């Protein structure tokens, strides 16, 4: 029964036309596949890897490569591992030699999970034209069930007023350096500007912040700030880089307690706001 159930399930999930449902389903299927792979021999794993054209090679256990069963081309590794958060998946923490990353069977199964997840997600991109009403009913019930379980995500409102006390340490430092007119790197300026625009500071106020720079040119700054705010060109509103990226470029100067639990400066801001709110004395009459 398992084999025909997969195309039917795929069709139904595709018919929901909800990207969250699709992602959840793809992830669940991929996880199941990967847990099955963990118990498989080298041959089966090689077959699956070949299907995804991964440059993978089985290796014989060697004294200085203990426990490793496979070597994977580093670009294939990065493509699948870069989004896994655990430190042990960071390329910096892997054994990398001659362009190959060494892996255990369990580890290659985890990476194949990413390939499978993308493969299924792609399969779910199809537009399902029309399904018989009896099946559509089931699809709708599926949707309803999903929303009941997961709820619709909604962001807490960010207050319109800018709360400096809720800035993450990196942004606070950038803000101070900028206001005193000292040199800030390009990525630093980008991070600060996009952060401020995203927490609701007006473009005018952001531009004013840069006035103390010795090389300040209003026209140029206005153009750039408005571009980042999504008011020009491609109309994309830019968001600040992730914590990970800020670390790479030396903008992150070490973490505080909240930093340890988040991956994005904007999430820090929301969390800190919540903490501040909880600790704030209750206003009289409230």
């Amino acid at each position, binding site marked *: 029964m398992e084999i025909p159930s997969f195309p039917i399930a795929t069709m139904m999930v595709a018919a929901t036309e909800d990207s969250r449902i699709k992602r959840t389903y793809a992830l669940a299927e991929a996880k199941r596949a990967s847990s099955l792979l963990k118990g498989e021999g080298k041959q089966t794993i090689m077959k699956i890897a070949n299907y995804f054209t991964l440059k993978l090679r089985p290796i014989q256990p060697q004294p200085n490569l203990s426990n490793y069963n496979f070597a994977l081309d580093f*670009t294939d590794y990065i493509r699948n591992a870069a989004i896994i958060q655990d430190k042990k998946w960071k390329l910096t923490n892997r054994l990398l030699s001659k362009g190959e990353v060494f892996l255990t069977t369990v580890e290659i199964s985890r990476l194949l999970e990413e390939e499978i997840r993308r493969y299924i997600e792609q399969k779910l991109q199809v537009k399902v034209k029309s399904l018989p009403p009896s099946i559509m009913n089931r699809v709708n019930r599926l949707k309803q069930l999903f929303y009941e379980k997961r709820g619709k995500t909604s962001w807490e409102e960010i207050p319109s007023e800018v709360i400096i006390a809720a800035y993450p340490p990196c942004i606070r430092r950038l803000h101070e350096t900028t206001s005193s*007119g000292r040199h800030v790197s390009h990525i630093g300026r980008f991070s600060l500007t996009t952060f401020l625009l995203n927490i609701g500071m007006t473009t005018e106020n952001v531009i004013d912040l840069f006035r103390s720079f010795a090389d300040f040119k209003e026209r140029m700054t206005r153009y750039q700030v408005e571009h980042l705010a999504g008011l020009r060109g491609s109309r994309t509103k830019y968001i600040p880089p992730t914590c990970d990226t800020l670390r*790479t470029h030396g903008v992150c100067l070490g973490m505080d307690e909240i930093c340890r639990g988040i991956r994005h400066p904007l999430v820090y801001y929301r969390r800190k706001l919540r903490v501040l709110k909880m600790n704030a004395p209750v206003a009289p009459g409230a």
Partner: protein
Amino acid sequence: MIKIETQAFIQARFCEYYEKNSMNIQPPASMEKREFGFFLLKERIMLRHKSYKTAEELRDSLQKLVPSNVYYSSAYYELPEEKMEEKGWLGADLIFDIDADHIPTPCAKTHDTWTCRKCKTTGSGTPPERCPKCNEQKFEEKAWSCEVCLESAKEETIKLIDILTKDFGVSTKEISIGFSGHRGYHLHVKSKETVALGSIGRKEIVDYIVGIGLEPKLHGLSGIAGPNLDDLGWKGRIARGTYEYLLNATPEELRKLGLPKRAIQSLSEHKERILKSWKIKGPWAMIKGVSLESWGKIVEEAVKKQAAQIDTVVTTDIHRLIRLGNTLHGKTGLKKTETSLAAIEEFDPLKSAVAFPRGTATIFVFEAPKFRIGDESCGPYHNKKVELPLAAALFLLCKGAARITEDGSSVR
């Protein structure tokens, strides 16, 4: 700001260069898929989104525009002349920039100078937080690069080549290196494997090379064992870095690292034993009084020494414009000069990059430290009229450290 007469003088020399050396300017591979950009000295603007089909067209443009800086995209595009979002990104070379600016060098940049914007007080080295005289925080900075700076940049480049070839398996044939014409080196990897990598993938490569997020524990450092000298990848680098560090570290340096007294004493007393220990399993478990935490701090130093200090932004930017080989650097009048992997150790950037080997010019120098261009050492100068080899004179003029003389700088 460079005065207009001086600017015209620079422009005229650059023009001669592009007329005489046109044939030495080689376009990058797949030039028709690249974006070209030029900085124009007189107009002070960047001309971007240009594209050329043949080397001749490009050379023609250089002679007509006489730009102070010439760039091309590391990226390949379907339509290089379109706006960024409509170019159609096809891939990009993997590029690295090593700039003395980013490296803590032994010379401590004492040759750099700063001037307070308010009271015009000057000083050398990195500017202070606040002006000692008027408390102002804004400074005009002038960066110079000395032989020590350039040598440090070269050492980092050699480390980078080692990591790329041994760990990433990049073939030496896929690597090209060039002196930027100012303070550092560019390294390009042209490989089928990496061309399609996005920004996130390139960031992982950068983090590996710089050692960002490295956990010694995940490389085998525990209370009872640690990496060996001949281990592969970062493991071996950690061991070799630790070896090197402990060989040279003074008790003072160990103190600065935050090691407790007992550990410092133990490490100093057992230097011989530590050296010998590398022949077997390393010193990790055998030196009493050195805790795992202390080893962690030592390894952190070792990682800093083994990592290559690259500019992290350049490599992760998949739309980057980068200087074209054999074109002039507007801040120095030197040319970007390619060198080979085999020759890099002996490469003398200040000699090979001289673009104006003949002639002299008389200029008025405001302020310049001692420097060398080609075989000639010049300076230091302070408000002085001097006749210099043309390359040295242009170097100071481009830096804004000198102007041409009223009687007309003579070029001979």
